[in-house]
């Protein structure tokens, strides 16, 4: 070891660099730093693009109705009472109840029927299983609007089969539950099929020997063991129905007592103001409408992610 100030012997001598050159130098030595920087950029981009609309809703909601055109990036005024006013102007609670009721009922119907279908497709061998499964999936590729006119006729009693006219379901939950269940079923069938297929046959056999029927084995053994898959299918169905617009808007007249969901409620605010559309009330109602789904996703997030991936990865 030399104690001399020899540049070739001692520790590396730092060259004189500007801050940018310094950063580049560090990046070459430590590429992880760059990856992290890129991750932040991308993350911030997505956070801004997804969250800014919500922020904008909040700005609109807090701005008093008569100053709505002056709202910029910050609210023009501060009017938090709007979150209470909306419940007074229209029966918004009832609209929320309608939406949650429709979403929950559809989820239950879908999970029950898709469980049976998932059992059949996932665990039984029979001729034509592949084509049948494809047919079920094909339904989910149809644009839902294509079903609207025939269903409208059907649900308004305009279709007679063997002289019996179809029931009049307009303005009842049935007019939405039926198309929702049918449209969102294929996804759940697909998810549950992959999960149920992975439960070892021995467990089902053991349950049947112990005293269940096939159906009993499905609900006592296979479904509990596929909990992540069932939770995923359930949450996805719930969110899809809760967010549905097309049938929700057209199958009722938009009044709360006629089972119109939240979309009907928000649109009511167009007429709630005396001379102009009350954008601030609509924004407040939208924020409140989003809350149940947000809470659900935050609570179930881990299950959904593990459900969607473990379906593919489990042996």
């Amino acid at each position: 070891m030399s104690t001399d100030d020899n540049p070739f012997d001692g520790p590396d001598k730092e060259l004189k660099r500007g801050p940018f050159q310094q950063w580049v130098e560090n990046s070459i030595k430590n590429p992880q730093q760059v990856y992290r920087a890129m991750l932040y950029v991308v993350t911030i981009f997505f956070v801004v693009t997804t969250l800014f609309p919500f922020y904008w809703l909040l700005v609109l909601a807090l701005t008093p109705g008569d100053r709505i055109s002056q709202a910029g990036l910050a609210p023009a005024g501060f009017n938090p009472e709007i979150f209470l006013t909306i419940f007074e102007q229209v029966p918004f609670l009832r609209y929320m109840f309608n939406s949650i009721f429709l979403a929950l009922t559809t989820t239950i119907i879908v999970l029950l029927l898709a469980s049976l279908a998932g059992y059949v497709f996932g665990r039984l061998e029979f001729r034509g299983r592949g084509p049948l499964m494809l047919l079920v999936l094909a339904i989910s590729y149809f644009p839902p609007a294509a079903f609207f006119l025939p269903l409208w006729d059907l649900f308004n009693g305009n279709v007679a089969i063997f002289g019996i006219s179809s029931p009049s379901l307009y303005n009842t939950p049935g007019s939405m539950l039926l198309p929702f269940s049918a449209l969102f079923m294929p996804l759940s069938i697909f998810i549950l099929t992959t999960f149920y297929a992975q439960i070892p046959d021995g467990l089902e056999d053991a349950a049947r020997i112990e005293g269940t029927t096939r159906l009993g084995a499905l609900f006592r053994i296979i479904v509990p063991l596929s909990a992540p898959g069932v939770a995923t299918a359930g949450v996805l169905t719930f969110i899809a129905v809760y967010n549905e617009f097309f049938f929700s808007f057209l199958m009722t007249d938009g009044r709360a007592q006629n089972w119109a969901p939240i979309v009907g409620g928000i649109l009511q605010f167009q007429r709630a103001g005396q001379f102009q559309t009350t954008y601030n009330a609509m924004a407040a109602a939208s924020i409140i409408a989003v809350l149940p789904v947000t809470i659900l996703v935050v609570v179930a997030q881990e299950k959904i992610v593990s459900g969607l991936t473990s379906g593919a990865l489990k042996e």
Partner: protein
Amino acid sequence: MAGVTLTDVVKQYSDVTAVDHMNLDIRDGEFVTLVGPSGCGKSTTMETIAGLTTVTSGHVHIGDREVTNLPPKDRGIAMVFQNIALFPHMDVYENISFGLRLRKYDKDEIQRRVEHAAEVVQLEGMLKRQPDELSGGQRQRVAIARAIVRNPDVFLMDEPLANLDAKLRVHMRTELQRLHKQLETTIIYVTHDQAEAMTMSDRIAVIDDGQLQQIDPPLTCYNEPANLFVAGFIGSPSMNFVEGEVTAGGFESPRFALSFDPADYGLSPGQSVTLGVRPEDVYREADTAGVTDPSAPVPMRTDVLEPMGDEIFVHLRFGEADETMDDPDAGDRLLMSVDPDADVAEDTDVSVLLDRSRVHLFDTDSEEALVHGLSASATASTPDPEEARGD
């Protein structure tokens, strides 16, 4: 408590017949093992008894009830599976009590029965554990407890020990025998391991190709195999086979000859037969002390030795290794078992003879057994054609 009867049971899958006209009559309290190579239909046979698969034709009776079309839950059976099949989302107590809870038993009764079953299989103190916290042997005990807790008429066990390590398997084997003695229930046991079949069963049902080959007590299967398949399957290492022909003077093959009068055994000259002899019934000429009726000695050469500790298996062949003549079916190779302290070495000449009272003759075409053991008397002194060549 009940016996099990299969009458002409057929199970046909689209392209294969898994069970082919199976007739089985299993008595009350009997321990019967279904044994055979993989894919022989033994597990399918068990599934037809369990009701996990429906029969294509034929009838299944448990006790005096016809159960052919009953679902598994109404058949009064319990089953232990190869993969153990404990319900992973239930603890040991819930697993054992699953069947009782389904049948809406009284809570105290369930408690009493589960505790008793746990005691029988020595699982006390583990009732609150989850299956994944147990060792392989403990899981298997839970599965057995789950089976015995309902007092079924019949136990079905489908290779229950196959997934355990060798030492544990031997241990569980004796436990199962003890359990059978204690419960006196009919047990039907499926295995491909003939050691399990030999040691535990009252009777062994040997199955091949979906057909029942023989159902008899283990020693009968060992000593008087009904056909070539049973002879080759039961016993480890396998029986030696030598293809040959019946002549006026007895049995003859290119390497071996045994002299007897074919008429005494209902054989006719010209018939193709296969001679079967177990390794322990092949002797060196030097150790024939205990053999009452030795055959004529044949010169052979030792190939490799397999010392097992309690015995040595000696692979024998004729002369030097010669590919063209090396046909195991013709008796060019033979396996012999000798005492562990015997003085044998690889690649040495040895003169070999068979215990005539322990040889078997099978029809080569139909594979059915014709003769088990040649009688001592008669032609023992007649010189064999091989004898001249041998010495």
